[in-house]
């Protein structure tokens, strides 16, 4: 019993730790003059210019980051696991670098590297995609590494090869489906990172959703809190949708299983 109560206490305390500030923020954002409540701050927020434009920018930067990250990292980490397992430690070390390098150094580094790059990279949020792929590396690498570690990769790959699979088939039909949850996990983390990243975007003078949030919030206290809540809500919704997609696939997978007597099944 003590144990059970102890667990509930911890759960409630953590719940309060997260929920009280949010509830307070919601209450504050609804406050109007003379101790009344209204949606004034929220309607102002929707009237602010740039909301949907910056949100759109952030969304395609997020999509670009997810796609580019997966395109680069899934084959790379798979290759390391298959052919150079001794390099895993080194890879892990390298992938952690973005955590210890200050953002300003990263920004300058990328600017120097792409100094002669065409305008379409340098002058648009495309450069953010490149930065975020690097910034998300610690999370991406560890997630994919754990996913590949959990399957019998060499045997599965060799089995597929002997059955006639070329390398692209191996990657798309064997590796990716079996580390699907790791791939989705990496996508989650990338998305969350992009939707919350302010420093780099701000230094590079890009109008992303987080930057817009900060700028808009500076005008008025009520609106600022409403903006914060709104961005939280957007990120939450996106992660929710993504987890629904991931979850449904998984359920289909499990549902198909218990049907044991096999006649000629549907395709």
């Amino acid at each position, binding site marked *: 019993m003590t144990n059970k109560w102890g667990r509930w206490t911890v759960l409630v305390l953590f719940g309060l730790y997260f929920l009280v500030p949010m509830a307070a923020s919601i209450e504050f954002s609804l406050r109007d003059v003379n101790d009344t409540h209204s949606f004034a701050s929220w309607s102002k927020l929707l009237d602010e210019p740039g909301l949907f434009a910056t949100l759109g920018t952030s969304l395609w930067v997020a999509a670009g980051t997810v796609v580019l990250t997966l395109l680069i990292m899934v084959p790379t980490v798979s290759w390391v696991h298959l052919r150079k397992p001794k390099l895993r430690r080194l890879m892990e070390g390298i992938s952690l670098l973005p955590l210890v390098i200050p953002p300003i150094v990263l920004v300058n580094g990328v600017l120097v590297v792409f100094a002669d790059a065409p305008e379409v990279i340098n002058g648009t949020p495309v450069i953010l995609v490149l930065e975020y792929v690097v910034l998300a590396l610690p999370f991406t690498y560890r997630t994919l590494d754990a996913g590949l570690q959990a399957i*019998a990769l060499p045997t599965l790959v*060799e*089995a597929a090869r002997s059955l*006639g*699979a070329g390398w692209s088939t191996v990657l798309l039909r064997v590796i990716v489906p*079996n580390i699907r949850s790791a791939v989705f996990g990496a996508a989650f983390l990338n998305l969350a990172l992009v939707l919350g990243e302010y420093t780099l975007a701000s230094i590079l003078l890009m109008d992303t959703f987080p930057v817009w949030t900060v700028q808009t919030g500076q005008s008025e206290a009520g609106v600022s809190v409403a903006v914060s809540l709104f961005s939280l809500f957007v990120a939450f919704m996106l992660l929710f949708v993504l987890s629904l997609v991931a979850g449904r696939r998984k359920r289909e997978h499990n549902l198909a299983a218990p049907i044991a*007597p096999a006649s000629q*099944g549907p395709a």
Partner: protein
Amino acid sequence: MTVVENKPETRTGASVEFRGLRREFGDVKALDGLDLVIEPGELVALLGPSGCGKTTALRVVAGLEQVDSGEVLVDGTDVVGVPANKRDMGMVFQAYSLFPNLTVQDNVAFGLRLRGAGTAERHKRAQELLELVGLATQGKRYPHQLSGGQQQRVALARALAIEPRVLLLDEPLSALDAQVRNQLRDEIRRLQLRVGITTLFVTHDQEEALSIADRVGVMKLGRLEQCDTPAALYARPATAFVAEFVGTMNHLPGTIAGGTEVDVAGHRLKLADPGERADGAAVRVLVRPEAVTLEPAADGPVRITDASFRGAVTRLTAALPDGTTVLADLPSVNAAELQPGASATVGFGTRPVLLATDGS
């Protein structure tokens, strides 16, 4: 895929020939000039201690391992350099080789799908193969819902589905428990004979190799020591290594006498392979337990120390006058009087004997 038209219907498999295969990993010679010919439809088991190169040889045929030099001829054509996915080899691994995200049926059909077979054809063929391995009702399940033995059957069905030129089995039974292992072993043999496919079977378990194969190749340090039928291998081992590796052997102290004979506990035995050893040299002589005879004798020089009943035969453990332990397999009817503590006389048969390799 290549059909050999001039062969009768029972021998449809391809022939496989290793010519001087060499492969080094750093300082280790995994293959050190391996030569072997496998006839169409034959099941050859490669047997040897770990690190002898047997798995490397199999992986070379599959194209999963490269060679430093040498040729692998399949139906007379060298396949070295052909990528693994273009070789049409059916491979069964030790364990965990089924695709966890696919149903049993889709696993079996995987190779057919890559070959562009239509849905209906794939399902039909997968179902046929699942019936062949006795899992016709399990097609909709996922690998993790099957037992280890069932998973290996699916792996076998999947390998056979592509109608491979050669079936390669890489210790397919070693992850299973004893009962399932024996059952599946016999089933693999039955299937192999029925399909008539040339098969290379790698194992470190001599019982497995001897009971399943047409011929067994014993490997040591990347070379083939001997390749022969199980019976010949057991009765006439070409080298001491083979003699010691296959079956149980007594190691008895002896001294060389008269060049071609050896003296063991007062008995003169012929040497099968008289080397250049000097008279009087101390050696260790290899004698099978079933070649040892024990006769009850009240004042005999040998003492029985243990008797273990094994049905038709009884394995007796006896101590020679010098304290050496010797194992003897006697028909149980003859062993009744030889209880622990009894005295006996000993004989070592008339077959020429081999000497143990030094240091083993």
